[in-house]
């Protein structure tokens, strides 16, 4: 019932809002085409509300995953038929922006602040706009944790604990812009070396690293995997669908915005602008509160209408990192971070898991009977695992960047495949060496 009411509210709000400015604005009509990675649960209410608010328009929703969507827009730019791109991953918008596939717009969006925690809500150049936010956290299946006697997790660090070994799942940052943002946040928050050490310790417990964002909540919902690192709305909407899952924001989390942008050369620019403005209006923001959508509005005022217990990031419901997120660093090493994660973790998960498991075992034994020599060996092993093939500076260097930009050749840069092979064998070597140390340590504590 709540959705019907919200839709009505939206219509009412808009008819008031547009009454004043209708004389000046071009009246939107016709087909408005949006490429989105959002599920039907999200798009259907927006379609209904938008079409009701602007009679004569139809919202044509093309559901594609983010990567395929970007590909589609790139491949079809010669004869563009798409008005809008609407997705979570900010990097997808960065790519579109870099390829000049977005057009600027100044949305009428009173009440939306410039920043949410350390993150900018809108693109500084006005090419895309944050329209909702989501916090990262841990989701788990209660039946699973009960059956396997796992404690409820609270912090990111918990996921590295022995008890969770082989029970956790994550999406690879190269396939999920939101995961990428989380990884980048950890790297900026903890520093390059320490950040990677955290990531590797956590990843050593992973059951698998999937390539689909929805793969994680899907596996947790069905109980195939116990815990998953997910965006909050996956857990909220799963709860709304009665799955036995729970969710927690760790004390320091990340916020990822959902964005919308207008495609350059959009066939229906008036309609496109109207849709952006609609999403950012109070009515559009209120729709986010629907249980099946469950995203966080970027307009702080909207939380007044939220049900009891709805997390409000503006009021500290989600612990945000205290540092300033540096977009330019993130941008420079974007591909490098993705490829490093894949080569060091995703595609070397088996050896990483094996050595992590062995370390957990030795630690368990050490807890019963201490052995300083073994502890030294373990520390050495841990150091080996966290060693990185490149420094933070190298990762953001022009040379490495050139390797990932096939179209702008630079004579000295190795080809991407060569670089990948180097990094991968580096990791393999270190993990093997670490495994030997751990085995030696194990001999000391029989």
């Amino acid at each position, binding site marked *: 019932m709540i959705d019907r009411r919200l839709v009505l509210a939206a219509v009412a709000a808009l008819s008031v809002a547009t009454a004043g400015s209708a004389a000046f604005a071009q009246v939107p009509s016709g087909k408005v085409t949006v490429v989105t990675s959002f599920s039907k*649960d999200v798009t259907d209410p927006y379609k209904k509300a938008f079409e009701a608010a602007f009679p004569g328009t139809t919202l044509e929703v093309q559901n594609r995953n983010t990567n395929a969507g*970007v590909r589609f827009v790139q491949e079809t730019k010669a004869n563009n*038929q798409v008005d809008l791109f609407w997705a979570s991953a900010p990097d997808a918008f*960065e790519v579109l922006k870099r390829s000049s596939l977005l057009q600027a717009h100044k949305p009428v969006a009173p009440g939306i602040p410039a920043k949410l925690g350390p993150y900018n809500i809108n693109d500084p150049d006005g090419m895309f706009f944050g329209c909702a936010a989501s916090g990262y956290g841990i989701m788990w299946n209660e039946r699973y944790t009960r059956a396997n006697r796992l404690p409820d997790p609270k912090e990111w660090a918990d996921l590295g604990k022995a008890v969770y070994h082989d029970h956790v799942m994550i999406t690879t940052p190269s396939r999920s812009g939101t995961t990428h943002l989380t990884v980048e946040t950890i790297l900026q928050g903890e520093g390059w070396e320490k950040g990677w050490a955290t990531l590797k310790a956590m990843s050593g417990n992973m059951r698998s690293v999937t390539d689909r964002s929805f793969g994680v*909540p899907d596996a947790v919902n*069905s109980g195939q995997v116990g815990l998953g690192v997910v965006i909050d709305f996956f857990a909220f*909407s799963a709860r*709304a*669908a009665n799955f036995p899952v729970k969710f927690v924001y760790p004390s320091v989390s990340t916020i990822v915005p959902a964005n919308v942008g207008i495609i350059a050369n959009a066939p229906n620019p008036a309609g496109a602008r109207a849709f952006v403005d609609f999403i950012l209006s109070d009515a559009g923001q209120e729709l986010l509160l629907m249980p099946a959508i469950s995203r966080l509005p970027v307009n702080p005022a909207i939380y007044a209408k939220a049900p009891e217990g709805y997390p409000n990031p503006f009021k500290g419901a989600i612990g945000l990192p205290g540092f300033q997120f540096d977009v330019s660093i993130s941008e420079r090493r974007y591909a490098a971070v993705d490829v490093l994660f894949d080569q060091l973790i995703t595609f070397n998960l088996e050896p990483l898991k094996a050595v992590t498991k062995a370390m957990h075992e030795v630690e368990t034994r050490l807890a019963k009977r201490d052995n300083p020599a073994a502890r030294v060996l373990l520390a050495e092993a841990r150091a080996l695992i966290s060693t990185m093939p490149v420094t933070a500076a190298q990762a953001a260097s022009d040379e490495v960047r050139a390797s990932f930009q096939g179209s702008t050749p630079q004579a000295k840069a190795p080809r991407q495949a060569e670089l990948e092979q180097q990094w991968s064998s580096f990791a393999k070597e270190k993990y093997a060496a670490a495994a030997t140390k751990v085995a030696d340590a194990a001999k000391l504590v029989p």
Partner: protein
Amino acid sequence: MTAIPGQIVITTRRQSVPLGQYLVAGSVALFLLLFLVIPVVTVVIVAFVDPQSGGFTLVNFADFVRNDLFMRSFWNSVYVSAMAVAWGTVFALPLAYITSRFQFRGAVLIQTLGVIPLIMPPFAGAVAMQLLFGRNGSVNLLLGDGFDINIPFMEGLNGVILLQAIHYFPFILLNVSASLANIDRAMEESAQNLGSSGFRLFSKIVFPLAMPGYVAGASLVFIKVFDDLATPLLLNVKDMLAPQAYLRITSIGLADPMGYVISVVLIVVSMIAMWIATMATRGRDYATVQRGGGGLAKREMKGADKIIAYGVVFLILALTLAPHVGLILLSLATVWSFSPVPDGYTMAHYGKVFAESPQFIWNTLLYATLAGVISVIIGSAIAWLVQRTRIPGRMLLDYLAMGALAMPGVVIGIGYLRTYYGVTLPSGQSLATFWFMIVIALAVRRLPYALRACTAGLQQVSPQLEEAAENLGATKARTIRKILLPLMAGGMLAGFVTAFATASVELSATMMLVQNTSDAPLAYGLYVYMQSPAGRGPGAALGMIAVVIVGLCTYLSHWLLDRERSGGVKP
């Protein structure tokens, strides 16, 4: 030289140029060029381009060989494909042999049910199998409660092998059944007469005779598994070639050629597999056409044999239909999480699907039917050119069309966008996103199935039957219409059904081409549903609807063909 039936050398080098043949060959060649060769070449050409100089290079292939991940993926793909063939054989051979050689209650039902796994809607198979056989699936939860054991059916490559074997084993079943039906029963009877029976009879006589069918089916399974990316990805297996290619090609922000290099490797390996299969069966087609009907005598089974046979058949069917059983449960489940069976049951998902997205069903019927028809037309044209004419380059058409088997759907999808997006229709819409391009993509992807079925259908028509018509005054065109088409209708229908059934659940190329939801087929709808927790039930319901529709259409076309065949006979 004296002609022996079936070995007649037909000269078509008439004094006048066979214009009609060139017209047919030209049209087919144009179709393949426009919708297969050019789109694929525009995509994979990147694999041969030096990123620095922009010239031709093979350095990317050297990178492929030097890269551990790619080589591991390559060998994993080979291993998984080979194991899927092995398990597919284990599933298919008993079903084919028992139903074709013994009096077996429900043989027709078994043959029909045996084909159902081919119709596996995307996502559905993997999701359902995880729920049943996954680490915390029904079977392992029950085993865990009862015996405290956990069998890793679905772990890593095992899961891919199991699911692929279940999905594709019907290719072996269909081909071996067809081969068995065409073997002169005297061959088996003479072996029995000489004292052979049971497994020895099967392994020394029956199986070698059915070898051409087996190799055809097995090579098809190998190639499909080798090129399939959806199943491994859904089971979170990424170190196989097809998923690597997909991940590379669709990763944003990266511009390296390795995805296309892997695509080329996929294509080459598939071609080699087809070539090996052709070589292995060359000159070994022992099938003989039975004279004057009669059919094979089916043997009676007794006592323990009978019980074992029924047991084996039941077990195989239970396993191979498991994904569909899981899908039914899922489509009726309220919540199904970490429990052997769902918490409760509801019809609401079906209601939701019918209320929200009936257009998916109609689109699918329309697209798959058109795609089936197109692929059968092109397929039978190629079969005819190859078997009945001497036109230069006819074998090339055959190889090209079969090559579509090896083209990853993503490559075709992107290729169509690249090639045709700039072409605008009078309505202003781009040709690449016109719904008919989905049909074309489906037709091209299903062409190999249709081609093989049409080729087999045509092989069964003796050229003398056509010569007799020409001799009695029928021109080539009329001979084709009045003699050839009716006689190869069975083969064409078989091709249509396979193409239709598999096209109706295809997603990979479709995904790139769907422009709006109102034009989208069912598989796309299923994908959209399956992206949200609440959409899982409706997604499964949509999958079930697909299976039922395809099953019904298959049954209907068989029924029509039977009626057609028996219609002319009067008592």
